[in-house]
């Protein structure tokens, strides 16, 4: 998990958090973490959700800590 403070891109505003996510099926991916809380630490379980990122029908898979 790493919080990015410097980002020149226009698709997201810094600071934001990126994480390495180990999927249940094995692959390791990198994705944006949302709703970051103290539990957003290495080793904690996360779940994916489709987040609408603009007014069009554009959705992005982002992850947040599984609080269930």
């Amino acid at each position, binding site marked *: *998990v*790493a*919080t*990015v*403070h*410097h*980002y020149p*891109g226009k*698709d*997201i505003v810094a600071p*934001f958090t*990126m*994480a*390495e996510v*180990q999927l249940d099926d094995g692959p*390791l*991916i*990198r*994705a*944006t973490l949302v709703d970051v809380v103290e539990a957003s*630490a*290495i*080793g904690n379980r996360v779940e994916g959700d489709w987040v609408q990122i603009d007014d069009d029908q554009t959705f*992005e*898979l982002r992850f947040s800590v599984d609080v269930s």
Partner: protein
Amino acid sequence: VSRPLQELSPVYVIGVGLHPYQKASATPYTALGVAAVRAALADAGLDWDNIEVAYTGTATTAMGLSRLMYRHLGATGIPTAQVENASASGSTAFRQACIEVGAGLSDIAIAVGVDKPLMFSSPQRAAGLHDLAGSRVAPFTHFALLANRYMHDHHATPEQFGLVAVKNSRNGALNPNAQRQKARTLEEVMAPPQISGPLTRLQCCPIGEGAAATIVVSEEGIRRYGLDASRAVRVLASASRSETVYRNENFDAALTRETTTQALADAGITAAELDVIELHDAFTVEELLYVEAMGLCPEGHAADALEAGEFDIGGRIAISPSGGLLSMGHPIGPTGVGQICEIVTQLRGEAGARQQTGARTGLAHMVGVGAVCLVHILHRSE
């Protein structure tokens, strides 16, 4: 059949030269490169007319840039080529020069690195590839993720990463060719701006401009031109690898481990016999990852070894006495060649205030976008 460099004819570095690394300026790349080449020629006691082939490591300036640069020295008709291999472009140019001389194709070759930060391209963008992370995982965020992983796995602290920059800034302050020539305290290194994860600005290398040159010769070349053999430094090994499938392993460390293992085996030495190393410390965490991957200390112990001064000039093994990428700078094309310049200077005992006493064997390590790794081992006999 794959053969190591050591099975070819002996290859020596006989001349090194640099144009200081610096922030982007109005200085043309031709002036940067020519200054480095002339310095290397003077160091070797050679003229440009003696050079039989030239490889130029470059990645961010212009297509086919050698032509304009070498015109200033004389269009002698020799083979020239640009070598692009991301951050390892200069290291790869040096390897090509070594292969050319070792194979007996030439007796005197020059490897030059030159760049200005004029154009950066992304292969993913060029290929039209998209993924979830996209440009949000810039190199500093890639290494911030690794830094946080390292802290989690080994109970390291952000300040221990900061100590890498403190050490290398101390070394860079002794190097007139370094882009950052100011020794920094831990407080200064840890001060904002925060870039990504635990990495602050001074834990990230500066990308600027500069040039470096090394002249590689055969034993016949030394004899033919009456060169000073006592200042010749033998290239013991040149290992070059690209990535394979590492599954969930840290691929940066794995690729460095594989390539260093190959280079040490080719050179017929162990890591414990190294006196000085220049490594790819674009971000502080890399130094800790790579010294462990090279076998210089057990996994998870590099931060403690660093704190104990083992990697200082005068310590067990001097790591990045030039200041490394963090302080000497990372102008891309020149960086790998500049590492060879520093190792040669150290092995000759000519490094002045940043000299590692008694250095005889040195290693230069570069990675290129995490996909390639080059390791060279050099040695100077008594």
